[in-house]
C-alpha cells in the first residue's frame, strides 16, 4: 500500500510538463490580441499591453512582468491586475473565468463580508456560505471518539475548537510533527492569533484564497466521505476550477493529477469499509505521501501542508 502512493507520486512527477499548458493558452490569447491590434513582435505587444493597462508608455523594464505573465514565470500580483490584464486582452467572460480559475488558480468571485451571511442580499455568497457551514458542521460531527478522548472535550463543545481540530488533522495528514509532538499539541488547545483569523476568514469566505488553500480546506473537512465527484462539486460551488487532469499550478506541478490518483487508490482500498478504517487509511497514506514528497524535495506537491503547521510543531 505504501508503495502504491509512492508509485503514484513518481508517476505524476515524471510526467510534469516543462512549461505550463495554461501559460501556452495565455500566449495564444496574447497572440490573438497582437494580431487584432496589428502589432508584430513580442516586445511591441508587451509594450502595448502595458500602455493599455496603465495608460502610460512602458519604461525599459516595465514590460518584464508582462513577459513573465505570458510565459508563466510569474503571475499578476493581484486580482485587480489580473482582471485588468484580461480586459486588455479582450478575453470573453468564459475566457476570463478560465484565466482566473485555471491560470491564476483563484475563485471566480471574491467577497468581503463578515456579518451574518443569512442577512446578506448576495445570493451566491449565501449559497457558498451555506456550503461552508455544512462542511464545518459535518466535520465536527465526524470527529472520532478517539480524538474526543484525546482532547477531553465533549461533542457539544467541540465547535469552538474547530480550528484546533482542523490543524491536528492537518498535522496527522503530513509528516511535519512526530506522533509524540502531535499528542502534546492535541492537549494544548493552542491557538495562533494569526491563523485564528485566517481560518475564520476562510470559513466565512471573506477575502481571496488561492485554489490550493481551498482545495486543502475542502479535502480536510470532507474526510472520509470523499471522492472526486464531491471534491469537484464543492470546488465548483465555491467558484474554483474542479479537479482537472493535466492542470498545473504556478510551478508546473500536477497536483490535480496527484489528488485524482490518490482518490482512486482510496476508492480501491477502502470501498465498503467503515468510516474509522477509511479515515485511518487516509491519514496514514497522506502522511506517508507527504514524507516522501518532502524527502525528494517536491514541496510544491505537499498539498495539505501549510505554514502554520511548522510553527505549531516548532513551538512544541
Amino acid at each position: 500500500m505504501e508503495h502504491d502512493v509512492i508509485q503514484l507520486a513518481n508517476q505524476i512527477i515524471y510526467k510534469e510538463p516543462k512549461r505550463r499548458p495554461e501559460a501556452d493558452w495565455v500566449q495564444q490569447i496574447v497572440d490573438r490580441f497582437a494580431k487584432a491590434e496589428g502589432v508584430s513582435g513580442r516586445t511591441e505587444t508587451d509594450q502595448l499591453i502595458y500602455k493599455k493597462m496603465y495608460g502610460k508608455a512602458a519604461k525599459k523594464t516595465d514590460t518584464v512582468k508582462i513577459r513573465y505573465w505570458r510565459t508563466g514565470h510569474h503571475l499578476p500580483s493581484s486580482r485587480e491586475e489580473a482582471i485588468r490584464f484580461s480586459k486588455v486582452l479582450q478575453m470573453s467572460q468564459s475566457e476570463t473565468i478560465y484565466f482566473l480559475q485555471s491560470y491564476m488558480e483563484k475563485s471566480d468571485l471574491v467577497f468581503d463580508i463578515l456579518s451574518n451571511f443569512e442577512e446578506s442580499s448576495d445570493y451566491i455568497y449565501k449559497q457558498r456560505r451555506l456550503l461552508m457551514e455544512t462542511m464545518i458542521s459535518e466535520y465536527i460531527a465526524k470527529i472520532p471518539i478517539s480524538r474526543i478522548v484525546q482532547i477531553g472535550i465533549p461533542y457539544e463543545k467541540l465547535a469552538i475548537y474547530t480550528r484546533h481540530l482542523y490543524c491536528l488533522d492537518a498535522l496527522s495528514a503530513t509528516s511535519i510533527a512526530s506522533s509524540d509532538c502531535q499528542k502534546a499539541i492535541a492537549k494544548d488547545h493552542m491557538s495562533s492569533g494569526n491563523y485564528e483569523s485566517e481560518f475564520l476568514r476562510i470559513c466565512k469566505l471573506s477575502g481571496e484564497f488561492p485554489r490550493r488553500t481551498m482545495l486543502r480546506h475542502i479535502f480536510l473537512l470532507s474526510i472520509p466521505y470523499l471522492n472526486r465527484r464531491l471534491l469537484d462539486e464543492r470546488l465548483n460551488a465555491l467558484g474554483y476550477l474542479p479537479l482537472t487532469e493535466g492542470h498545473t499550478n504556478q510551478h508546473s506541478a500536477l497536483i490535480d493529477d496527484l489528488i485524482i490518483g490518490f482518490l482512486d487508490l482510496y476508492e480501491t482500498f477502502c470501498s465498503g469499509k467503515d468510516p474509522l478504517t477509511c479515515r485511518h487509511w487516509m491519514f496514514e497514506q497522506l502522511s506517508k505521501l507527504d514524507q516522501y514528497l518532502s524527502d525528494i524535495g517536491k514541496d510544491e506537491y505537499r498539498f495539505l501542508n501549510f505554514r502554520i503547521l511548522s510553527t505549531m510543531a516548532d513551538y512544541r
Partner: protein
Amino acid sequence: MIDYELEYLNWKKRQIVLQQKYQDTPPGLTPEQAKEEEEHLLIEWDDYQERKRFHITTGVHIEDEPFVGRLEKLETIKRLFASGTRTIFLSGIGGIGKSALARTYGKLHAEEYDQILLWSYVKDLEQIFADDEQLGISNMIYSQNKYRSCRRYARDKYDKLKRIANIERILIILDNYNRLDDLWFDSLLEIQCDLIITTRLSAKLLSEAGYVAVSVRSFSCDEDWRNFYRLYAQKEPDGQELEAIENYRKSVQGHTLRMKLALCNTEKEWTKERIARSMFSNYHLIRDEIQILCELSYITLHGIPKDVYLLCTKQSSDSLNKLVNYSLIQQHTDVNGRIFVSLHPVIAESVQSMWRPSVNRCIGFLQEFAYYARQSWYRTRKEDLWFAPQVIALLNQLPKPIACRYYMYECLATFLLEWEYFSEAEQIVLPLYECVRSYYGEKHQFTAFMAMRVATVYYDQMCFDNGRIWFTLSYNMYKEAKPENNSFYAEKTDSCTRLARVYEYEGKYEDAHRCLDEAVEAMECFRKVTEEADPERWRYGRMRLQYTYTRRAWLYLKQGDIETAQRELKIGINMFPLDEFNRLEISRPQVSIYLAKREYEKALEAAASDLEVCLRYQGESVKMSMGCRERLGDALRALGKLKAAEDEYIRVLSLLQERYPYRTEWIERLKQKLGETF
C-alpha cells in the same frame, strides 16, 4: 466527566446519517445497509440504557406460608395505607406473629406493588442499604475504588432507591427493628413507599413518638385458635388432647410461636411434667440438633444457603430437616431458587440463653465457614452475594482475635479483601497481625503469613509503598522462620511471588527473578512434604508453581525476551491440569506474547476466549474482565480492525469511569491507546 460510551453511540448515529448522505464515497451506505446499521445501533443503545438504568433486583415474591386469623389487623393495615399513612409499625412481643402478619399483607396485596422488599434489621439501616442481597440495584456494585467506604455506597444506593420509589410502587417490610434512633431512620421515612416495620417496642412508646402503631397480640377468639390447631396439628384436637393444648396455651399466654412449635412437635406429650417454661423442653433434641441450633445462632436472620451450611458443618441433613419440620429452623427460597435456613430471632435468642454457644463450641463450623469464605475466588460473585453481610455480621459477633485462631479471622478478612471491603479488612488484619506477633514472635511462620496479609490489604487498595514494606517484611520473616505446618512452603512461595511482582513493577528485574527462583525452590519443598503425604493439599497448592512461571513470563516480556517468555509460560500451563478459570489465570501473558511476536490472529483468538471465560465467571465489571477486554482491543487494533478495537476500548473506559474512577493510570493508558491508533 464525559460519558464516552454515550458520546460514541451518538457519534455512530451521526455517521450513519453521513454514510447514507455520501453513499457513493468509500464508507458510504445504501439505504438498506443504513437501515441494518441503525438496527444494530438500536440494540447497542438499548444495552447501554439498560446498563445505566437502576432498578431493584431483590424484590421478592412472597411465598405461601400458613397463616391464620388476624383478618382485622390485615384490614387495619389496608385502611391505614389507603388513608395516606406511609409507615406502620406492627408492635408486639417476639414470636407473636408480627413478621408473618407483615408477609401475609405483602402476599395479599402483591398486585398493588411493583416491588416488595423484605429487610431484616441486624446492626443498622446503613448495613441494609449497603447489602446487595437485601437491597440489590441493577448496575450497582460495591467498589472501594469508587466509593471509598460502605457508607458512601449505602448513600448512593439510598439515593437510587429514593428515585426509583418516585416512579414505582414499593412496599418495604423491615423486620425486627427495635429502636428509633438509627441514624438512617429519618432518611428511610423520606422514601416514597409503604413501610411496614415489625418491632418489639411498645405501641404506646411509638404513638408517643408520633408513629402509627398496630398492636399484635395473641388471638382473642376461639375460632382463630381452632383454625390454628387444625393448621399445625394436622387434625382437629379433641377431648383430653384439646384440654392439654388449652392448658399449655394458658401457660404460655397464647404465645403464637410457642404454640406453633408445640403443635409441630410430633411427640405430642402434653403432660404437665413435660410442659416447661423453656421453648425447647417439648423436644427431645439430640446433641447434633442442639449443635445445629448453636451454629445457626451465629448466622443473621437472612440465613445461610442450606447447601453451604451442610458443607461447613459435620451435621447430617436428616438432623437439619428434622429441625425444619419442628419449625425450629426457618426455611425460605430466594429469588434464584436457592434454599436458605435461619433461626427466628426469638429462637436464636432462646438458643443463646439456653446453651450459650461459644466460639469454642462452634469452632468446627466457624472454621469451615471461614474457609468457605476464603474460597470465594473460585465462585461467581452472584453466588456469594448473600455472603458479605454474613461475614461482616459474624466478625462483629466474634470476640477479639486470639492468636491460635488467627487463621479463621484471616479467612474472613481475605473474603472482605476479594470483595474490596478494604477498610473493613484492614481493621481486622492489623490487630490480628499484632496479636499473632505478640504471641508467636517475629521469626514465626504465622507472623510472616499475617504480615503478608497486611501487605495484600495495602497493595490491593493501591497503597504501594506500604504494600512493599510489608511484603518485604513478610519475605524476610519467612527466611528466618521454621515450618510449623505443611502450608509453610506454599506460603513462602506466595511471599516470594508477591515480592517479585513488586520488584517487577519497580523495574528491578534481577531482584524479581531472584525472588521467583526462591519461590520455585519453596514449591519443590512443598511438593516433597505434601505430594504423597497430603495429595489433596498438593493438588490445590501446586498451581502456585505454575503461577511462578506466569510471573516469569511477564518479566521476560517486559525485558523484551519474547521467546523465553513464551517458553516459560508454556512450561507453566502444561505442568499440571487446570480448570478453565485457573487456566485463564495462569495463561494471562499469552495474548501480550502473541502481540509481541506479531501473531495477531492467535492473539485475537486467545483474547476473545479469555474474555468469554472471564465474563462467565466474574461478570463484566471486575478488573480482570476489563483487562481481558482491553487486550482484545489490542489484538483487534493490531489486525487493523479499528472500529471493533475502538468498541472494546470505549467499553473498558466507560466501565473504569463508572467503577474505578481513581485508577487514573489505567484510564490514561486507555485514552492514549485510543488517541495513538486513530
